[in-house]
């Protein structure tokens, strides 16, 4: 059964067709490299899957049953997590606070609930250790490097038992050494049966980890095929329109 299936998804903003009749299936543990030029509809697609936008038409199926997301929380509950391009991180909070943002653990004293900072720090510390990141839970995100911020964003998505993780340009703002770490992490997620949608401009990164490549051009899905049967040259052609479909 597919972890996620998009059936004829369209999304219009007034007269602009950001997504047009897109159908795509993603199996558990599959890594899908989603590519396309700026404005091709990648971010819109992520936002539709993540529940930020409702599709104008079409269906989203999770494990074979239809899902209706009215807000991001609905998608989270269905096991979909997003690591955003702009990182969706609050600079003024600590790494641990960011990891738990929106789902802070609390201790209850009768009607009074107090944020459990100790639990937040220790759990965030475990996650960073799993990511082999040097990020310290107490550090304020404002003072972190791009790679550490990425680790915070990814740790967020590991917090719940996500089944599908969407990553928007996870390797765009970090050092070469940390790119390798992030790609390793993606493989680990895949081995645990988590499906990963990797949105990236960096062709080598995509072909290193992706099982399948999907290409969007002007809101339409022009290719969806195993990475082993494609090549960077073909994908470049598909993105620019030199090759119509594949």
């Amino acid at each position, binding site marked *: 059964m597919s972890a996620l299936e998009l059936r004829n998804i369209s999304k219009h903003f007034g007269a602009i067709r950001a997504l047009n009749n897109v159908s795509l299936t993603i199996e558990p543990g599959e890594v899908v490299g989603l590519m396309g030029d700026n404005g091709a509809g990648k971010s819109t697609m992520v936002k539709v899957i993540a529940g*930020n936008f409702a599709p104008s038409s079409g269906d989203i199926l999770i494990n074979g049953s239809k899902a209706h997301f009215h*807000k*991001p*929380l609905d998608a*989270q509950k269905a096991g979909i997590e*997003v690591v*955003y391009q*702009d*990182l*969706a*991180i*609050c*600079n*003024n*909070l600590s790494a641990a*606070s960011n990891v738990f*943002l*929106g*789902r*802070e653990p*609390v201790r209850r004293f009768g009607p*009074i*609930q*107090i*944020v459990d900072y100790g639990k937040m720090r220790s759990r965030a510390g475990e996650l960073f250790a799993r990511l082999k990141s040097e990020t310290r839970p107490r550090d304020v995100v404002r*003072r972190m490097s791009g790679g550490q911020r990425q680790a915070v964003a990814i740790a967020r998505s590991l917090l719940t038992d996500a089944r599908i993780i969407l990553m928007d340009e996870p390797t765009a703002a970090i050092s070469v050494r940390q790119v390798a770490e992030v790609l390793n992490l993606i493989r680990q997620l895949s081995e645990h049966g988590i499906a990963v949608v990797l949105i990236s401009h960096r062709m080598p990164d995509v072909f290193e980890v992706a099982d399948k490549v999907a290409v969007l051009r002007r809101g339409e899905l022009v290719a969806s095929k195993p990475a082993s049967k494609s090549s960077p040259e073909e994908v470049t052609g598909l993105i620019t329109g030199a090759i119509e479909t594949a």
Partner: protein
Amino acid sequence: MQKKDLGLAILIIVVGAVVYLRNPLFLSPINLGNTANLVGLFGIFAIGQGFVIMTGGIDLSVGSVIALLGVLFVEMVGGYAVPWPAAVAITIALGALIGLAHGILITRFKMQPFVVTLCGLLIYRGIARGYTAEATAGFPFGASYPQLEWLTIGRSYGIPHSFIAMIIIAVVMWFVLHQSVFGRHLYAVGKNDEAARFSGIRSGFVITSAYVICSVLAAVAAIYFAMFTKSVQPSSHGNFYELYAIAAAVLGGFSLRGGEGSIVGVVLGAVLLQELQNLVNLLGIPSSLNFAVMGTVILLGVLADQQLAAYRAKKRAAQAFERLQSERVES
């Protein structure tokens, strides 16, 4: 306690020491008691302003709310003989309604906080003046409300109850801002509203709550001020008080861009402001220069704070660069 708060505390002590050396009356029980009373009165609504500033907003209507609700409170208790606990409840409920209206206009109708609360400033002041036809609202001659007076203007062991009330409110609000989930969300919404919403935080609810807290505390302060002055002159009562609150918050380390600040900071800010007022009186500086002294100190304080922060950031960057260089040499 954060570094910023500690700096402010030291500044308060240093200023206090200087004033004491020039005029020992500064530490007399009477002066301390009176100053503590004023710190309490102004601190109560400054804490509320802090919550609004935390969201990146501003509430300019606080002074007018204090005037309008003060007039209504005095009228209810003095004019219509409403039992005072009921009058207190009604006043606080009205405060909550005002905050709710601000919050809804700002989050639902996407109006700018400055505009909404500026209109509030004009509207509430206008209603207060219109309702009383510019007459001063006061209690009837000889009227006395022992329990209410004990709660508001009474003293225990020389400590004014307004100050004690402020401390209690500060402790409760410290838990709300620094220990509750709502507080975490307030920091997040204030700094990066979009990130907060992506994290599933209902930012509209969080922001509206901040305005409700602000106006409710302004309502509490309105009762204390009305009891303190005993009569409310609708055209001048509470004038500029919102600016005192904003000044206290900014001195206390709040950023008007949102997402920065602490309860300890805003309380210390309120203390410093009253200390400065007291300084003007005790050192024989003409009281007409009052505002000039306050403005200068705030300006210098914020300037020094920012320059220090920039200096620290530069030093950190230099250290990181050196580390990088040495790593490169090793490898």
